[in-house]
């Protein structure tokens, strides 16, 4: 390369970039592309959206073919698709229209409860409800009711500024959980036991019945739903309404001046998001053959938000990719999954993290990784010699990595307090690493990586179910502070 080509620009800083027009900046980025990656990106952009969809659909199906074992398909495939649907709906509210809806999970719950009520049988407090409506009617009614509820909630946003809207929606979400959990008017919600005898999807028309009873069936049905919703949303995003949403998100006052009915747009966004959540809820209730209040708790809300934020608000592809990433992690780190998968993924993610952080310089990456290995082995040997109880613990279901771990990580017989202090120290060190630059950062990485492995082996791997939530919380913080547009979103630029 000749010496006087312009240097590769620094990665864009987080948040607002002053003085650069978005389109110009994107054109600059496109011109900077080099190499094979650049060619592929160029070809991808040439594809029409239908072509992109055609590529993505097998990409979703293919990884699941080997998993067609029922349990895995349910836990991974079905949940990924349900969360993808939910993320698409939330994307309409947060990504397209820019409204922070913290009660979104209540619509999910309404959809599930309405479907369960209409297509199931249960009795409580001597009220016996035995409706066995066909799924097409109960799903339709659930979607319509949720849309109306979204309308109702959205209309309350008229008098409220951004933050207050977040508050009211948050309470709406909480009120839903409390309402279904504690009160039980006329035996409708069955309180904390939820509605349990729910029919699977029965489509009855013209004398024929189509029953979706198997996990595979739900998987295909949900896939169809996701594809249909994707197409609908893409069409809307490209339409007048979509452009109006984007305008009202960027600057509501200017949009109002240009004649867009901003209030009505907000209400429409709420309504559409709620309707999609209602659809997801109905199918979820059918797949789980039940609806329980804790299925719609704040944890689920944070999961959906993690999907949307990681994928990038406003981007449809991002929703799908985010759903796959988050829900797969969620399931791998579940208490019913074998821990060794989680361990492999953890170490791979750790190495990837180092690579991504120290990216252009291979030297630094090598030093960091090799340094950690040497440090670990040395420390282990020293502690082994000095204090035997420091290393005689067990590796929790190690699998094929047991040998390596036993020599590398300190495994005290009674981790207890040590693990707690280690965890706190690890957080401090991670913060330090983030603040440093250059070779100091590389040096700081060595104890940090080792401590992370220590904490993993001693606490985190035994409580994978909790670890994943810690991870998602940290993910939200990290994404917002480092790359607010997520993986596929567009960075916000402000023209000054």
């Amino acid at each position, binding site marked *: 390369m000749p010496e006087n080509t312009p240097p590769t620009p620094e990665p864009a800083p987080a948040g607002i970039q002053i003085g650069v027009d978005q389109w110009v900046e994107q054109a600059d980025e496109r011109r900077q592309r080099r190499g094979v990656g650049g060619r592929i990106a160029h070809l991808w952009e040439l594809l029409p959206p239908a072509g992109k969809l055609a590529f993505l659909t097998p990409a979703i199906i293919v990884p699941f073919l080997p998993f067609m074992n029922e349990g895995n398909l349910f836990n991974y495939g079905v949940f990924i698709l349900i969360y993808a649907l939910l993320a698409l709906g939330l994307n309409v509210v947060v990504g397209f229209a820019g409204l*922070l809806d913290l009660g979104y999970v209540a619509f999910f719950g309404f959809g599930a409860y309405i479907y369960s009520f209409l297509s199931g049988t249960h009795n409580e407090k001597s009220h016996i409800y035995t409706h066995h409506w066909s799924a097409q009617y109960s799903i339709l009614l659930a979607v319509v009711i949720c849309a109306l509820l979204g309308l109702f909630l959205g209309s309350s946003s008229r008098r409220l500024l951004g933050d207050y809207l977040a508050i009211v929606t948050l309470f709406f979400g909480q009120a839903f959980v409390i309402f279904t959990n504690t009160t039980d008017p006329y035996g409708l919600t069955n309180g904390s036991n939820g509605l349990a005898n729910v029919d699977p999807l029965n489509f009855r028309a013209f004398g024929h019945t189509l029953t979706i009873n198997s996990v595979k069936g739900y998987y295909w049905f949900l896939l169809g739903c996701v594809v249909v919703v994707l197409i609908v949303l893409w069409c809307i995003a490209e339409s007048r309404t979509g452009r109006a949403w984007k305008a009202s998100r960027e600057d509501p006052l200017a949009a109002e001046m240009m004649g867009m009915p901003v209030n009505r747009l907000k209400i429409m966004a709420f309504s559409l998001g709620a309707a999609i959540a209602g659809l997801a809820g109905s199918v979820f209730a059918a797949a789980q053959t039940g609806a329980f209040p804790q299925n719609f708790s704040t944890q689920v809300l944070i999961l959906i938000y993690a999907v949307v934020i990681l994928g990038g608000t406003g981007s449809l592809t991002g929703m799908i990719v985010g759903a796959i990433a988050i829900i797969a992690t969620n399931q791998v780190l579940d208490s019913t999954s074998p821990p060794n998968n989680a361990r492999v993924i953890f170490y791979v993610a750790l190495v990837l993290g180092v690579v991504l952080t120290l990216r252009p310089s291979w030297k630094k990456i090598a030093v960091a990784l090799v340094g950690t290995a040497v440090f670990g082995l040395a420390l282990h040997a020293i502690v082994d010699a000095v204090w035997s109880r420091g290393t005689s613990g067990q590796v929790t279901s190690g699998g094929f990595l047991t040998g390596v771990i036993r020599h590398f990580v300190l495994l005290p017989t009674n981790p207890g307090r040590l693990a707690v202090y280690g*965890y706190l120290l690890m957080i401090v060190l991670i913060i330090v690493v983030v603040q440093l630059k250059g070779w100091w950062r590389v040096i700081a990485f060595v104890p940090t990586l080792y401590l992370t492995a220590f904490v993993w082996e001693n606490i985190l791997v035994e409580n994978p179910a909790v670890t994943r939530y810690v991870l998602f*919380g*940290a993910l*939200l*913080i990290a994404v917002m*502070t480092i790359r*607010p547009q997520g993986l596929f979103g567009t960075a916000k630029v402000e023209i000054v």
Partner: protein
Amino acid sequence: MNPALSQQLRNLAGLGVGLVAFMLYAVYFSPTQGWVFFFQLTVNGIILGSIYALIALGYSMVYGILKLLNFAHGDVYMIGAFIGFGVLTLLGGPLNPEIPVALLVLCMFVVAMLGSGFLGLAIERFAYRPLRDAPRIAPLISALGVAFFLENSALLLFGSQFRNYDGYDLISYNGIHVGGANGVFIQYLGVIVIVGAVLLMLALLALVRWTRLGKAMRAVSFDREGAAMMGIDPDRVIAATFFIGSALAGAAGVMFGLLFSQIYHLMGFLAGLKGFTAAVVGGIGSIPGAMLGGLLVGLIESWAKGYLNGNVSDLVVFGILIGVMLVRPSGLLGTPALQKV
């Protein structure tokens, strides 16, 4: 009289009328009649309300300065409660304290307040400061992330077992009887909580009104850039605000632990929501508003649990919030937000 002040006075008048009407209904017409029952519930409500007021103060102060709803505040409260429990256990536990009880309680408070204060500082530094100029959604989502992270870290580190302060074993089961043996009964512990909360609130008011830091806080909340031009360092003032707000939450956590004994990793969630309600009802951004709001939420919850079924008390509290938001969006003692065009 400026319109904002007259609006606030009208709000307070309306509130007063409502309270008196409720009192008359409760004492003379409700199924469980009687002054004693009403006053017992009121005393319980004031004790609970003091705790909510301390939490609400943190929310209000941070919102006033940064226009940020700090969802992680409830979890700072939870960590404060756990720190207090740690100190209690280290110094012998509720049944055999190694140092005199008064000193032990003081120690718990001081350590918990310092610990939560520093935690608040750290949260501000790493989760909110980089997002100072980002669109409004960004710090809110970051706050959600911090809240989730703290709750689950506590679960990971401390386990899921409820811990019990056994505060009554530590201090005393006795108390003051007002109005004879069948009258209103206030435990000594309840008195300590109310007195402690009042002292802290007075200290805060004194800080804001009479110290330079307080003046700086008021200036930064009014106009950050203008204050910076006048030589006030907004970063330091904001950090101090977070420290103080979180320290108050930590104190509230210890008080809750002493009074109601059980602490667990999710206690911050509901308490945070109620403290939040209190701050909003009282007028978010206003310190007297937060105190009033906290007291009000505590009283309403106590009355709802007493006169209605235990199930619906939370719903009632949230319902009141939504009602107030729709009728008076800026709260009881808040100033209506002006949107500059």
